[in-house]
């Protein structure tokens, strides 16, 4: 455990912060800020009642992060209401995903969480209607490249990001949680059917607890980029801890639901790395049932090696020798899981040589 980066050790056991000296604090703050977890650190210190015992300079720094996060939450709640208003005539419940959902539902995973897009889930056959409603309210697509449009509309599980003309906020409209082209395609109708209204927030819903965890896991372990790997893993940790403590039958239902949705593999990885890196208290029975998603031994050894690197804070102090290679392998893997091989080679070729900008552009 001592080989874990400082930030990971603190996320695992926040009270250890209380004993840090000045150089340790500086390193921790730097790792946290570059992992987008600065405000999370502030809120963890608060939650564990040690904030006021920390050095003054550290308290001040954490206060800056916390303020920026408070403002972010306010903006997200405002923007969510704007989207709800834009879509209220469709009669659809507004199903929020990822960070937006954590904030709207007031989950502990929202504490300190910063994100740039509002993510929503709508039925595929209502996409046109939703898009035109959003356009009427000022959100337009800024992906004008014909290849990008085709990439999103034919192959992906979401519309090209829509950006508001005046406020510059971005909405990702999803109709599924994995691309059309992926080998595994969990049925979005089942996710929508199980979605739950948020008490006290008319018109807003979030995925059911198991589905929310599975979506978070799928998002993390089918991704090609790990700039926020540790932050996303910490989301999973917080969701698991929270639902494990508040949702009756959660630990039994989780592996079953993963099996139903063909998401046993990402759940396996999620539990494995949450336990290994963050010490998440997952019951042994759940670990055993979720073992159904375990890959072969050679593949698992490779994945352990890759994720051990990818799930570190993206800070120069945490870089290991293999990191660029690990990043490249995970990037190709992320796309491999999302597209058949021929399509993938065409896509990578297009991104590398034909699209403006380099291969790691935001839509990949």
């Amino acid at each position, binding site marked *: 455990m001592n080989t874990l980066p400082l930030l990971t050790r603190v996320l695992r056991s926040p009270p250890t912060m209380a004993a840090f*000296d*000045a*150089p340790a*604090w*500086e390193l921790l*703050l*730097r790792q946290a*800020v*570059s992992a987008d977890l600065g405000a999370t650190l502030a809120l963890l210190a608060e939650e564990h009642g040690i904030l006021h015992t920390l*050095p003054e*300079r*550290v308290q*001040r*720094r954490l*206060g*800056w992060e916390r*303020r*920026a996060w*408070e*403002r972010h939450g*306010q903006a997200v709640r405002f923007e969510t209401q704007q989207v709800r208003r834009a879509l209220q005539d469709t009669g659809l419940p507004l199903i929020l995903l990822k960070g937006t959902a954590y904030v709207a539902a007031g989950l502990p995973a929202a504490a300190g969480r910063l994100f740039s897009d509002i993510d929503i889930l709508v039925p595929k056959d209502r996409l046109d209607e939703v898009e035109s409603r959003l356009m009427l309210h000022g959100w337009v697509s800024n992906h004008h490249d014909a290849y990008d449009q085709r990439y999103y509309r034919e192959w992906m599980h979401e519309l090209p990001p829509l950006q508001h003309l005046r406020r510059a906020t971005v909405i990702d409209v999803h109709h599924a949680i994995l691309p059309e082209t992926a080998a595994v395609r969990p049925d979005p109708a089942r996710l929508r059917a199980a979605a739950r209204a948020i008490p006290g927030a008319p018109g807003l819903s979030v995925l059911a607890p198991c589905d929310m965890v599975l979506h978070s896991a799928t998002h993390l372990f089918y991704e090609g980029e790990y700039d926020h790997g540790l932050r996303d893993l910490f989301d999973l940790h917080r969701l698991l801890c929270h639902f494990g403590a508040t949702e009756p039958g959660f630990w039994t239902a989780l592996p079953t639901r993963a099996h139903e949705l063909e998401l046993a593999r990402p759940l396996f990885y999620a539990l494995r790395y949450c336990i290994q890196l963050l010490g998440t208290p997952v019951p042994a029975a759940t670990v055993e049932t979720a073992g159904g998603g375990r890959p072969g031994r050679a593949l698992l050894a490779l994945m352990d090696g890759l994720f051990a690197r990818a799930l570190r804070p*993206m*800070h*120069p102090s945490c870089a290991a020798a293999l990191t660029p290679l690990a990043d490249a392998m995970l990037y190709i893997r992320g796309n491999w899981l999302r597209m058949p091989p021929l399509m993938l080679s065409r896509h990578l070729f297009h991104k590398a040589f034909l699209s403006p900008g380099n291969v790691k552009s935001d839509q990949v």
Partner: protein
Amino acid sequence: MLTVGALDRHTLAARLRGPGLRLQTGPFIACIRSSLPALAVALSRMYADYPVLDEDTTADFNVLLRRPRGLRRFIKPQVYFHYDGMEPFQPLPLAQLYPMFEWAMNWCVSSHAHSWLVIHAAVVEKEGAAVILPAPPGSGKSTLCAALVARGWRLLSDELTLVRLVDGQIDPVPRPVSLKNASIDVIRAWAPEAHISPPVADTVKGTVAHMCAPGASVARALEPATPAWIVFPQWKQGAPAELVPVAQARAHLRLAENAFNYSLLGGAGFDTAARLIDGTHTFDFSYGALDDAMAVFEGLLAGRR
């Protein structure tokens, strides 16, 4: 207390190359890393009086200024600014290293320091009363600030006015005053004794140079000041010096427009701006000659005695 000036060039360069130079400017400590010898030269000239802290101090900002790798370092050499793996700015030509350092330091404060309402404004103090000079670039704010400082006003800052959220007091962050284009020669003539860095041409702001903060201002960097006036300056060729009162509500809006984190601070931003407006007199100020301007500011002080 160790200062930059007390370190010889080699030691300074070695700190910058190695563990970083922990430089204190007002309430902030920046850990600066760079293997560029020109930065050591610039810092020893411009920051001689500033405190240097040991490695046992937690820095607020960690900055790195470096040259590109590979062939790029020989063809049109550039300088990159990194903030813990982030690159908030495009690289600039190597000749702009020192202005880039100053802009980077401003960015560090304006995008993080949310225990203050951070206003894009110069601020100077005399007899315990501070004048805030907010203004869009090109209005002559820095020139006016440099001129006042050369005539005995204490420099709190020429770019970043830090208004405490808790009590509305202003914390100084005295750093070199940025001068642009014609104002470089104006200030050279106005204050021949002032130390001004070599001008750098062709930046996004034209030709820029920096005037050293007076030693007395640096020495009092931890001493806050009470805001007394907010003066929106506007230089006009040949114009007489004229103060015109600005209504409170209008002044509040203009202050908000010039603040970096007004909306981020939400209610606290509004309250701090409102308290600031309440406790100060607010004016529009147009002037054509620095001598006239000095008389007007001395007049403000005299009216307060």
